[in-house]
């Protein structure tokens, strides 16, 4: 229905690539298609997938919107949660602390970007240093062991429900459905597409651009905090250096999923499918005993190839677009032309 930025073409391409990857791996060793393996695949993809959802919204808001601090938020949130658990705080409250911490950190980003007008890439680069640093300071650089915590907590990252990983069924999928609704079926999501497409037009049509953009950072923070909590439960440890590469990987997934880095296009659906592709490739490679770093490399190749192919197909001239600049057509209304 109202799926404005939904890109069926890209999604079909990604699904085809995913199928291709699965077939490729299966032809090497059919064992990869076993339930247990698919299960593990899902477990690994969930956290980065959740973070990528938030990144999708931030990038969708346009005008250079980007969040480099998502990994740091996840790390600091899980450290705070770990400390709370150590202090004997009831585990659901501790998880809540992680989520609230994520929200607060996202709000800091949002305020710096929209109120202080510091460019998103600088803001989040700086807050990334700050959040990462705080996580290290709070722990002294040492991982917090959580394996002795109640099993109900650890099940957040290790349990299963209806034969599926608990976090997939009870966190990722609900989050996915909520975000699809948020992005494609609500006032907020539709307005965000318009903001990302043409900021000035959006403002002149009565959309509160800054408020909307600030919210995207808050949501990204919330989801990163949540992903941090799940990751800590999965590994039974809260690490201040967790998710170090999450910023870059999440951006890559978002772009791969069909979002324009300039905003106003793309969908969490595309992001989810791209996450599945990355998950399959990653797992397939490690299943075949490739070092995990190849996964990242293959992802890089896919990312560049996807954009290159699209450029060739559409003949769209990215080079003419200033990178992350506030100039350009959406910044200031130009004067009337005469004659």
């Amino acid at each position, binding site marked *: 229905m109202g799926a*404005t930025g939904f890109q069926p073409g890209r999604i079909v391409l990604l699904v085809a690539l995913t199928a291709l990857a699965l077939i490729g791996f299966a032809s090497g060793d059919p064992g990869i298609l076993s339930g247990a393996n698919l299960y593990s695949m899902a477990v690994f993809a969930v956290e980065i997938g959740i973070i990528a959802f938030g990144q999708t919204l931030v990038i969708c808001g346009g005008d250079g919107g980007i969040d480099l601090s998502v990994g740091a938020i996840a790390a600091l949130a899980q450290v705070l949660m770990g400390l709370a658990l150590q202090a004997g705080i009831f585990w659901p409250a501790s998880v809540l602390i992680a989520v609230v911490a994520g929200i607060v950190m996202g709000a800091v980003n949002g305020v710096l970007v929209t109120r202080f007008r510091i460019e998103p890439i600088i803001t989040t680069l700086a807050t990334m240093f700050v959040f990462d640093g705080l996580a290290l300071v709070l722990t002294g650089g040492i991982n917090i062991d959580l394996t002795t915590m109640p099993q109900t907590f650890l099940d957040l990252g290790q349990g299963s429900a209806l034969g599926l990983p608990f976090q997939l069924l009870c966190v990722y999928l609900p989050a996915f459905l909520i975000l699809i609704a948020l992005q494609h079926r609500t*006032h907020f999501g539709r*307005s965000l597409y318009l903001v990302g497409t043409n900021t000035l037009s959006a*403002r002149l*049509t009565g959309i509160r651009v800054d408020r909307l953009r600030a919210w995207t950072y808050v949501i990204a923070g919330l989801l990163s905090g949540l992903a941090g909590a799940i990751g800590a439960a999965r590994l039974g440890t809260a690490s201040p250096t967790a998710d170090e590469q999450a910023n870059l990987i999440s951006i890559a997934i978002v772009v791969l999923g069909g979002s324009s880095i300039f905003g106003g296009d793309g969908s969490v659906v595309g992001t989810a499918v791209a996450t599945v592709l990355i998950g399959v490739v990653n797992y397939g490679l490690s299943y075949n005993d490739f070092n995990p770093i190849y996964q990242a490399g293959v992802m890089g190749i896919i990312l560049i190839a996807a954009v290159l192919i699209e450029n060739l197909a559409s003949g769209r001239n990215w080079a003419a677009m200033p990178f992350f600049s506030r100039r350009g057509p959406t910044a200031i209304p130009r004067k009337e032309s005469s004659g």
Partner: protein
Amino acid sequence: MRLMTAFELKNIVKSFGGVRALKGVDLQIESGRTHVLLGENGAGKSTLIKILTGALTPDDGTILIDGEACALRNPEHAQAMGIAAVYQEPLIYPHLSVLENIFMGREIAGPLGYVRRDAMRAAVRPVLTELELPETLLSRPMSSLSLGYQQLVLIAKALVQNARLIIFDEPTSILSRAESQRLFSIIGRLRDGGRAIVYITHRLEEVPQIGDRVTVLTDGQVTGAYGAGEFSETTLLELMAGKKSREIEKEIEAHRDIAADAVEHPVLAVENLSHESYFDDVTWRLPGGIITGIYGLVGSGRSEVALSVFGFLKPSGGRILLDGRPVAPADPAEAIALGIGYLPEDRKLQGIFATKPLESNLTSNRLGGFARTLGLLDFKSLFDDARRVMARYNIKAQSTRTMISTLSGGNQQKGLFARWAGKPFKVLILDEPTRGIDVRTKDEIHDFIRDLAAQGVAVVVISSDLKEVLSVSDRIIVMREGRVVDEVAGDGMTPERVLGSALGAGKAAA
């Protein structure tokens, strides 16, 4: 001294998507003369300059330089042929120094490209003297200069390039009176130095002061050409308005009479509104059910007053009354909630969401109205609404899902109009509601506007198109240089009076 026709345009034709902007224009430009090009907005002046500077290629016709036909391939080529233009909105490198702005791309450099700033300073010095600019200017960043000074720098650039023809595109529209006088004397000296000057304006009072020859352009055609002393302000005014006046009288049925006390009970009143950069002491009274036309030229501050009412700009003084109560919308969202709508003038930059479907574009200002439980949108009524306004405003598109940028300009504009007309407002300000669209669609939109007024909306039509303002409005407020200079209704609404007020006719004589 024998005057040479250095540059000549012959039978230049240019169309944009079926609209003929230039319908066979002839123009002779002699060295040592100032040629004024006079015309209303939309008369084709800009297109003509773009062709002269190589930014556009004509569909038909020839350009002769020193008697030889010369097809200008691109702006670089035109520059090499000695043609330079000084635009209203200077094309600059904001963070670089004035010196570099003058020489960028054609630096004086030694071995390895070592930039010889001293040599460049020396080269530009005589030009600075000619323009009466201090040499200290050269090391300042361009962005620290006012637009007036930036313009002078671009003139310097043209002179350093040895331009033989300098085109000024409405240079005074951004200048103060003192700055304008200074510019005139500079242009005079450039002319005396043997350069050809083309000066484009719609400020009538400037013409006798500066022009040796005047060419009047109306609707893409030359409607009059005069030498020095052959014209007066009155004849020019008649030329610009005259043809229109006859046309309009033929076409328009009698103006509706408005109740004399209508303006005493306005829905929206702007009282003594001022803005430190754009307008001063502006008062608009906008009664319901009546179409108020706002006429004024570029830079008259009309759009900015509207943007202030709409909460986009922050006025520095005065107040806005809605139904007699003071309001101060902090942003457009608040203005819309109060019942004030604004259709922006620039369709591409301020209006459409180019890559989004028609339904998104039609409903962007009232999405909240479709929100139901949990903020979810009711898509059935959203699409129903989109289809309703599509049908009501006769927007021709395959479906509500069609990407708006694939529609014709006229249909895009109707779409934007429908975005605002499709929602009940107390006050609706339409800024250039029919700019750049074909006549049929124009008439259609004018009918829609009258319907809105019939429903009791206080409608404002801001336009640079005299004919439009005269034919659609019940009363007209004329603005000039940030102030309201005239207000007419009924029989007072003649082309001569409105255009004369907007141009400041008679001021130069006084």
